[in-house]
C-alpha cells in the first residue's frame, strides 16, 4: 500500500482557477510562461491517477509530474 504524497503537476496553457473543483482539491497556480501548476494536499496513487485521467479528458497537455 503506497503512502500518500504531495505532487506538483504541470500542464500547458492557462487553466481557470475554477477547475480546482474537479482536481481532488489541488490548487491552481499560474506561471509566467502561461503554464499552470496543480499542487496541494497529499494524493495516494489512485487519486493521482484520477487527476491524470481528468487532465487527459480535458485534452490538457501534461508537461510534468513531480513528487515534492
Amino acid at each position, binding site marked *: 500500500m503506497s503512502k500518500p504524497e504531495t505532487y506538483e503537476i504541470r500542464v500547458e496553457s*492557462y487553466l481557470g482557477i475554477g477547475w480546482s473543483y474537479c482536481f481532488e482539491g489541488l490548487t491552481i497556480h499560474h506561471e509566467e510562461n502561461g503554464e499552470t501548476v496543480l499542487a496541494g494536499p497529499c494524493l495516494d496513487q489512485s487519486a493521482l491517477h484520477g487527476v491524470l485521467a481528468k487532465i487527459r479528458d480535458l485534452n490538457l497537455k501534461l508537461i510534468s509530474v513531480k513528487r515534492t
Partner: protein
Amino acid sequence: MPRSTTPTVQGNVLSLPKDEQNLSIIVGTPDWKAWLGTAKKFSFVGTRGTFTARKERRQRGGWYWKAYCTYEGNLRRAYLGKSDALTVERLNEIAGALTERSTEDWRGAPEPNGSDDSPSVGSAIGTSTLLGWELRDSASDVQLHTSLVTTKLLRPLVRPNVVPRPRLEARLESGVQCKLTLVSAPAGFGKTTLLSCWSSQTASPVAWVSLNASDNDPLRFWSYVVAALHALCPDLFEQALALLNSSQRPSIESIVTMLINTLVTVTGDIVLVLDDYHVIESLAVHKGLTFLLEQMPPHLHLVIASRTDPSLPLARLRGAGELIELRDIDLSMTAEETTAFFTGVMRLDLSPEDISVLEKRTEGWPVGLQLAALSLQGSEDAHGFIKAFGGDHRYVLDYLVEEVLRQQSENVQAFLLQTSLLDRLSASLCEAVTGISHGQAMLETLERGNLFTVPLDSDRHWYRFHHLFSGALRARLQETDAQLVTELHRKACLWHAEHGLITEAVNHALAAKDLELAGHLIEQNALVLLKRGEYIMIIDWMKALPGDSVCARPHLCSLYAWALVSTGELDAAEAWLQKIEHRLGVTADRISYVVPEGSDGGFLDTQQMLADVFAIRATIASNRGNVRLALSLSRRALELSPGREAIVHNVVARNQGSAYWLSGDADRASKAFGEAAFISWEAGYVPQAIVNFCDLAGIQAVEGQLHKAARTYKQTLRLMAEQRSGSFAGTGAPYVGMGWLLYEWNDLDAATCYATKGIKLGEQDKLMEIVLPGYGTLARVKQARGDIDGALDLIEEAERLARSNHLLQHVTRLSAFRVRLWLTQHNIDAAIHWAETSGLRTDGDLRYRHEATFMALARVRLAQGRPSEAADLLGRLLEAAERAGRGGSVIKILALQSLVLQAQGDRKEALVVLRRALSLAQPEGYVRTFVDLGAPMAALLASFFELSSMGSLVTASSALAGYVQCLLTVFGSELMKCQYKVGSNGQVGQGRDLLSERELEVMRLIAAGWSPQKIGQELVVSINTVKSHIKSIYSKLDAHSGTEALARARELKLL
C-alpha cells in the same frame, strides 16, 4: 426403423415415403422449412456420415432438432439447431462431427435434463462435465446477461453539420485489410462522429457496440458483441446467441471460441466497432479480446475507439503490419478541413489567415473549433474575435465557453451556469435549482441552439450537458461566484431528497458543505440505507462528516457502527458504540447497563438504541469467536426490543446458529440460520438475508448435502435477482459458494466463472470473507488442471490478503491447502517442515475449524511413511465429524483413511472403508474429493471396480459401480491431460528420459486402473503393442509387477 417409412435426406434432397403427396423437397427451400414445421424426424445420408434427426421439445417451450447415430456400439448425439438452422452445410457438418470425434468424448455423457439448447458439437462435452450436469441445470436460473440495452448497439446518428473527412475515412477503409484499427485520442476529437460517418457509407456491414463502465463484466461485454453481430447476420450467429441465452452460464472461453468458429464461416468482410473502449479496465475482457485478435478469423475486422491505448498486444500487431492507427495528430482538423467546416458547414466567411489562427490556437481540436464557430456565429467582428482568441494563452475551453456565454441572453447565461453542477437535468429539477418557471422550454431551446445539450430519453424528460461544456461552465461558476455554488448544491439536495433520491441528495449536501443537512438526511434514511446494505457508501459519508456531528446523533453512530461491523471493522465499530453509551449516559459492564434516571431522549428511544448497541456488540463477540458472550448479549438485546426490531432478532438467531455450530450440532445450527434468513428477508434486510442463506448453504455443504446446498444458493440468487432496489453488499457470497459446489462436482469452467464473479463482487464490497474462499476454489481448479505453481501463486496472494485483513482462520485454511499442493509436487521436505513447526498437537481440539489442518497433517504423515499416526488421527477426526453430523467431512476422512489402510497393507479393510465413502458420496455426486487424492486413489478405485464386479472381497450395487466408473473416467482424462502438459511444456525431468512418451502415456493409464485392452482402444493400437510397452516399462523400471512398477514410477515422480 425401415428406410421406407422414414423421410430421408440424401445430399440435399428430401425423399418422402410414397403415401405422402410431395415426393421430394430441396433442403433450404421454403417447402423444406414448412415440412420441418410438421415433421418429427428424418434420416440424413451425407458424404461425411449419416444420422437420424429427431425433433425435441425444450423445457421452456419451442422445439429443436437433435442428431443421433450409433458408432462402434455407442450412441452419439449432437445438437442440430432450430428448424431455421437446418441447412445442407449444417447437416453435413454434424454428420462429420458425429463420426470424427474420438470415442472417449461421447461415452456416457448423460442427457442434460431436457433444457439443453447448448451446442454439443464443436465444444466437445468432455468427461469433466460428467457429474456436473445436474447442478449446471439447477444453477440455471441465474440470468447474468439479463437485459441488453439495445440502444448501445445502434450506431450514433450522423449529425447533419459535419465536416466530411475523406482522408480519415480512406485510412479506415484501408484498415479493413488489417486485423485492428485503433482510433486513440482524448475527448472531443470526434472519434465517434468519424466512425459513425464512415460506417454509414462503407461497403462492409458494421456491427457497433457503445461501451460503458458496466461492460467490464466479461459476460456482459461478450453478450453485447454477440448481439451486435447477430443483428448483422441473424442466421449465422443464432447459435452463439442461443449459447448466451441458454440457461447455463457459459464460460467466456466457450463464447469466444464459438464466436471465432462462427466468424470463420463468414464469407464477406465484417467490421466490429467497439466505441469508448477506455471504460474497460477488466483484464478478463482484454484477455478475451487478445485471444480473438490472435485467432482472428480472416473476414473480421476490429475497430476500437478509445481515449487511452488499450491493453492489447499493439506492438506485436504493429510489427506484423496488422494495425492501422488514427491518433490525435491524425484526428486534429487540417487547414482544409477547418476551412470546409467554417465556410461550408457553419457558413462563416473567414480569411485564410483567420482560419489558420483558429487552427493553430485550437491545435485542430474539433470540439474547440466547434465552440469557436458557435462564438463566431454570434459575433459582429469575426476578425477581431479571432485576433483576440489567437493572442490569448488561456485554456481553449475556458476562453470559448466564456465567449459562447457572452452571446447568450442573461437568462440563458444564468441557467447554463446554475445547472452546470447537475449530473442530469429535468425541467422540475432545473426550476427548483434556478428558480425559473419554464424549465422544459429552456431545455428544448438549448437543445435546438446546439448548446451541447443532449436528451437522455425520447420523452425529453432528462437531459445532460456535454461533459466538457458543463465542466467549463462549472469551473467558471466556481471562479465567479463560489458562494452561489454552495447555495445551488443545497437547492439540488432538497429537490433530490423530496423525490426520494437519497444518494444524490446526500452528495449534494456534502458538496454544499452543509454537514448538518447531510447528517440529518442520512439519519432520517438510516433504516433504508441499512436495508440496502450500502455499507461502503455509508462509511465514506461518515468519514466526510466531522466526528462531533456524528456523535451528536446517536442514530448516526449506530448506523456507522452497523456499517463498520458489517464490513468487518470490529475495533472501529466498538469505538463508536462507546460514543453512543457515553452520549446516552450509560455505563456498560459488558452484558448489562446501568441507566441513570432522567437520561436524555425518550425512554423507548433510549431502549431501542441500547438494543442496537447490544445487538452490534453481540455480532462483534460472535465474529471474535466468543459465542457465549454473543448469546447473552443477544438475549439482552431481545429483552430491550421485544418483537420490534428485525435486525436485533436476526442477530440473535445468527448467534444461536453459530453457537450450535461450534458445539457440533449442525442440525440445529442450520435451523437457526434458516430462521435468521427468514426474519431478515421478511423485514426487508436483503444483505443480511443473503448472508444467512449463504451460511445455511455452507453448513448444508459441510453436512454433505450438496444438492440441498445448491438449492439454497439458487434460491439466494433468485431472491437477489428479484431485488430491484439497486445495489447491496454481500452479493458475492452465493457465487463463491456455488463455485465451491461446482468444483466438487468437477465442473471446472463453471466453478471458475462463479468463483471469479463472486470474488469481483466481494472485492467491490471489500468483503474479504467472500473473496478468500473464492481464491481457494480458483486455486483448486488450477491444481485440478495440473497447474500447481499457478495454484501456489493464488494461495500466496490470498494469504497476503487474509493476513492484511487479520482473518487468521483463513490463513490457517490456506496453509493447509498449500501443504496439499506441496505433497502433489512431492515436496515432502516442505510439508514435513510445516508439520513440525505448526505447533499442531494430534491430541488437540478436533472441531471443524481445525479439520482442514489436521487432514493436511494426516496426509503429511502418510507421505512420510508413518501411516499408523495418520490412521490414529483420522480415526479421531472421523469420530468428531460423525458426532457433529458433518457428512461431507466423513466422506473426505473415509476416503483418506482407505488410502492409509492400503499403505498399511490392509487391502480388504481399505476397500471396505472406501465402499462406505462411496456409498455416502454417490447420491450427492462427489467427484473432486476422490480425484484430488491422485493416482493412489485411482488405483484403489480400479481394484474396487474390478473386485466388486467379480464379486470378491467387496460388493457394489449397479449404481455404485456406475459411479466408480464415472470417477475412473475423470481420473483417466485428467491423467491424460497431465501427459500432454508435460509433452507440450517440454519440462522433462530426469526420470522422464527413462520412458518414451508413449510408455509414459501407457504408465499413466495403468495407474488410473485401465486394462491393457482399454488402453489399446484408447491409443488405437493392438493389445500386443500395449503389452510390449508394458514389458518395456517393467524392464526400464526394474519392476516385476504392476504394483512395483507403479511404486517405482511414483518414486521417480513420473506420476
